């Protein structure tokens, strides 16, 4: 049933939201124009508020409509058809929502609406100028999903387009214009992961939060209020740093768990596009802190706060315009919005820079001279290091943009991204890490005390000595384990240890004074731990699946190349590192049954989501399915059971790396790793290849054996006993009726690990003979019951064999990766503490002039501004 109403409602909602955003922007502008901050024209303000409220309401309607389309499996809509399917659980339907560009724009718009409502309620005299910026951004964002054609010009891409309008040439629509597909094409398998349910909203909330400080900065410049915006901007920046930072790391964790490139970070342009604004955001945060404490670096703060948001816009442009093309594996599809995206980006770049230039001379600069003994100087240097790190990633990530731009002005270049991106980025980012860890430790120690040569020396001695001792110990341990440590790694190790220890010392001191002061210290410890975790897990990641069989195929080169994948025959074992590893079969996920279920227990039916149990499915004593029951299965992913056994200790564990053959990806193998986590390291393994699945198995010619009960024979090199013939049980889909005769042979085959019962079935129905062969996947063996000779008591069986099943596995050991995740948590806690502290601060110091109060300014003899 074609339902166009819900789409029309949604589309109307988008148009209303767009128009309301224009009205809100204009009204807020008129309400504030030509007046000082806090003075507004009441009528325009009312109109602005009403318009933004209407905008928000319309956005909610749009979201409800789109979700209704996905949830209701309304495949007449292209969005539902291309992103969802019937068997998708509800929580992944949420992921469908933002799998497409339009939905992710909508998510972003949604967060802006919520934050906009908060600002309307609480930002008081800042409301009008701040909301001008907000409504301005919203009008650009809603235009992206407008889906309106004006005089041949397409504005935006609507998520409510019908399939028949999207693909009008489909023959089926000529026959039946109201045709509705029965199922959708489904959500990209890699996105069917719980992190993908929460990672995008977190990231977009982070993006949305960067708009607030930007809006305050713009409002400050516009209204000539150059200092009072800092306090509210500060708190929002902290929120942004927290949410964006956590969002990025969620993405990293998702990549670690789901993708098979072997790590959490790949320097993919899409990842970089988010990393860059976060670095600049953190730098801007330090600029704001400097202003609040020492009345310095205000211009820097303006520039960095504005740059953060502009970089978010640039990230949007990079990932959504198609400019990355071949350079990224996971940027969005090009929807032909490049022009619109460039206008959006340029509008804000030009506006923000023009405002800055106009007001630059009026922005107060500090008279203070910063000396070497000022913590402020080192905070500033640290922020500079962050910006340089961001600049490096930005400069290289933009290579496809230069290429596109040169092409646009008619110059063809053949420039490409570095062939070894990891090496390229690491060599600079490593030094940024060194700088961040070192300066965060140094500045943190200096921040809370009066500094001169003596005091500084005395307070740096203890962390300094501990750092050197710790570093020496680690270096010795690394050598003890026979690993090399390059000079750069030693520097990073020492700096990161110093970062941890110096900040830790300060946190302990501050705990005695007031816990909430130590947020910065805690976050810095988190960052330094993350650096240590990255150093260990990336610098010393160890591929244990080296090909040690001695069987090398390479005839062209003598020198050894990396051979990082090992072939594992089913039920054979191979040595890997300190483990013996064996592949013991294919499993499926059966909802309701803990763990995975062996495919050999499941008789697949025509409905790929249903199977019949060949035997009881039990876990311990608990019976989940009886033999013959219909079992609901999730057929997409195959889980390859891989057993690891420590040769020395005998300790064993099992991993189930999974893979799915995905038609949409050109029958590609989407392999996801499985990870065994130890305290000190992870064992990470994924399948790299499996036997070609699309082909029918290559069975050998059927060989006939005539047997009597009790005979033994060799089947595919396995000893088998023909134990007898019995009436066939009502098994797997035979559908026996009265008058049918069904018997089955009973074979016992001795495999490497266990014995298999094989029951080929012989059926006589209405004088017709039917045969149901039985297969042992483990052994690559198929038996069919061909004939009965009752007189002689002989039975004929057909035996065919196939190549045994195998997987190609890659396994990597990642030392101390837990430091990275725990560091992330600590960083988040630190941000949280800083937010909490500033909440208290507002309560304590709120005054009519927006609560400006300088805390603990160390008197300086003579001062000057640093930037």
């Amino acid at each position, binding site marked *: 049933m074609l339902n166009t109403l819900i789409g029309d409602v949604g589309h109307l909602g988008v148009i209303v939201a767009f128009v309301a955003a224009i009205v809100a922007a204009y009204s807020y502008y008129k309400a504030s124009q030509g007046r000082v901050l806090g003075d507004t024209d009441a009528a325009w303000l009312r109109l602005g508020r009403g318009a933004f409220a209407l905008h928000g309401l319309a956005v909610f309607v749009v979201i409800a409509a789109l979700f209704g389309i996905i949830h209701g499996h309304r495949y007449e809509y292209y969005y539902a*058809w*291309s992103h969802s399917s019937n068997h998708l659980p509800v929580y992944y339907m949420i992921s469908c929502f933002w799998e497409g560009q339009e939905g992710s724009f909508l998510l972003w718009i949604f967060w802006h609406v919520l934050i906009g409502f908060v600002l309307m309620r609480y930002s008081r005299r800042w409301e009008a100028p701040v909301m001008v910026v907000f409504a301005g951004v919203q009008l650009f964002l809603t235009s992206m999903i407008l889906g309106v054609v004006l005089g041949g010009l397409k504005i935006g891409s609507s998520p409510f387009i019908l399939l028949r309008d999207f*693909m009008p040439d489909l023959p*089926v629509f000529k*026959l039946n214009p109201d*045709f509705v*597909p029965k*199922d959708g*094409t489904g959500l*990209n398998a890699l996105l069917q992961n719980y992190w993908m349910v929460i990672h995008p909203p977190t990231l977009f909330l982070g993006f949305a939060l960067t708009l607030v400080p930007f809006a305050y900065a713009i409002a400050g410049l516009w209204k000539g209020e150059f200092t009072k915006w800092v306090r509210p901007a500060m708190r929002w920046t902290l929120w942004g740093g927290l949410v964006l930072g956590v969002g990025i790391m969620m993405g990293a964790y998702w990549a670690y768990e789901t993708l098979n490139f072997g790590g959490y970070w790949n320097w993919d342009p899409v990842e970089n596009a988010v990393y860059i604004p976060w670095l600049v955001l953190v730098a801007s945060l330090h600029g704001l802190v400097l202003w609040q404490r020492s009345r310095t670096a205000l211009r820097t703060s303006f520039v960095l706060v504005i740059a953060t948001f502009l970089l978010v816009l640039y990230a949007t442009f990079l990932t959504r315009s198609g400019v990355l093309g*071949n350079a990224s*594996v996971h940027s*969005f*599809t090009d929807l032909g919005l490049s022009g619109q995206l460039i206008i959006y980006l340029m509008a804000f770049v030009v506006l923000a820079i023009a405002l800055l230039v106009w007001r630059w001379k009026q922005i107060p600069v500090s008279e203070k*001279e*910063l*000396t*070497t003994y000022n913590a402020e100087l080192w905070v500033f*240097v640290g922020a*500079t290091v962050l910006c*340089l790190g961001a600049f490096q990633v930005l*400069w*290289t990530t933009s*290579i496809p943009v230069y290429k596109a731009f040169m092409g646009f002005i008619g110059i063809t270049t*053949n*420039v*490409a*991204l*570095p*062939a070894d991106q990891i*090496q*390229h980025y690491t060599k*600079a980012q490593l030094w940024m890490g060194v700088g961040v860890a070192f300066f965060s430790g140094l500045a943190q120690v200096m921040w809370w005390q009066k500094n001169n040569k003596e005091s500084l020396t005395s307070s740096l001695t203890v962390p300094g000595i501990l750092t050197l001792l710790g570093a020496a110990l680690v270096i010795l341990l690394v050598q003890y384990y026979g690993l090399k440590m390059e000079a750069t790694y030693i520097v990073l190790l020492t700096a990161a240890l110093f970062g941890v220890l110096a900040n830790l010392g300060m946190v302990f001191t501050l705990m005695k004074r007031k816990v909430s002061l130590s947020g910065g210290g805690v976050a810095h410890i988190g960052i330094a731990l993350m650096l240590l975790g990255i150093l260990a897990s990336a610098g010393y990641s160890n591929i244990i699946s080296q*090909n040690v069989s001695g*069987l090398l*195929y*390479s005839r*062209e*080169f003598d020198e050894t*190349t*990396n*051979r990082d*994948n090992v*072939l594992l025959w089913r039920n054979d074992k191979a040595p890997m590192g300190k483990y013996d590893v064996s592949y013991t079969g294919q499993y499926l996920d059966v909802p309701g049954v803990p763990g995975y279920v062996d495919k050999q227990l499941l008789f697949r039916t025509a409905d790929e989501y249903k199977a019949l149990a060949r035997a009881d499915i039990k876990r311990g004593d608990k019976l989940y399915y009886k033999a013959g029951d219909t079992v609901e299965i999730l057929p997409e992913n195959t889980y390859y059971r891989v057993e690891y056994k420590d040769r020395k200790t005998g300790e064993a564990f099992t991993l189930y790396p999974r893979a799915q053959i995905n*038609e*949409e990806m*050109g*029958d*590609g*193998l989407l392999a996801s790793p499985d990870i065994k986590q130890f305290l000190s390291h992870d064992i990470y393994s994924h399948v*790299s*290849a*499996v036997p070609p699945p699309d082909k029918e198995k290559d069975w050998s010619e059927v060989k006939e054996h005539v047997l009597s009960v009790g005979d033994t024979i060799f089947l595919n090199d396995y000893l088998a006993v023909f134990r007898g013939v019995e009436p066939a049980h009502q098994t797997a889909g035979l559908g026996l009726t009265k008058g049918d005769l069904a018997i089955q042979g009973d074979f016992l085959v001795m495999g490497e690990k266990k014995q298999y019962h094989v029951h080929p079935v012989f059926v006589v129905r209405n004088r017709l003979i039917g045969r149901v062969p039985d297969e042992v996947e483990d052994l690559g063996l198929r038996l069919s019951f061909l004939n009965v000779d009752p007189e002689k008591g002989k039975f004929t069986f057909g035996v065919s064999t196939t*190549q045994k099943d*195998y997987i*190609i596995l890659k396994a990597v050991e990642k030392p101390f990766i837990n430091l990275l995740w725990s560091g992330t948590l600590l960083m988040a806690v630190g941000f949280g503490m800083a937010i909490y502290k500033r909440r208290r601060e507002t309560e304590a110091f709120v005054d009519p002039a927006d609560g400006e109060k300088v805390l603990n300014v160390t008197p300086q*003899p*003579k001062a000057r*501004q*640093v930037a």
Partner: protein
Amino acid sequence: MSSAPGGANLLYPDMKKAHILAIAVIAVAIGIIMSAAGDASVYVSFKEARERAAEGNLTKVHVVGRLPRDVQQNIMGLEYNPTLDPNYFAFTLVDTNRIAQRVVYFNPKPQDFDKSEQVVITGAMRNDLFVADKILLKCPSKYVEKDIKDATASVN
């Protein structure tokens, strides 16, 4: 101007810390740009890749090409035998100038290889072979327009 201790200030008494910092920042930024220029790779043809190798230039390059297919649309010249060596995959790639080149890849064969229309490889020539360390596949339907067959298949 306070006589702040610090080596640079003693050497250049007029030089303010801000200037030193600014110079350092500019120097690092230039270093970053130079390093990006140095590390940036190029898209080349196989002819150029061979010339580079002949000159002893072993830096890695990008080559864009297509896989040669026979009349049945099967890719010609694929060589992958995992039971012999799972880490050896060889194929022939025809670049945009129609020059064919044998390529080896010391990794398992990417499973979506057969369906890909366009292939981007990075690596360098060694002897007569192009040794690829990265293969980027451009599949006709990857993330882009999905197969229309799905829609027609469900008619009835």
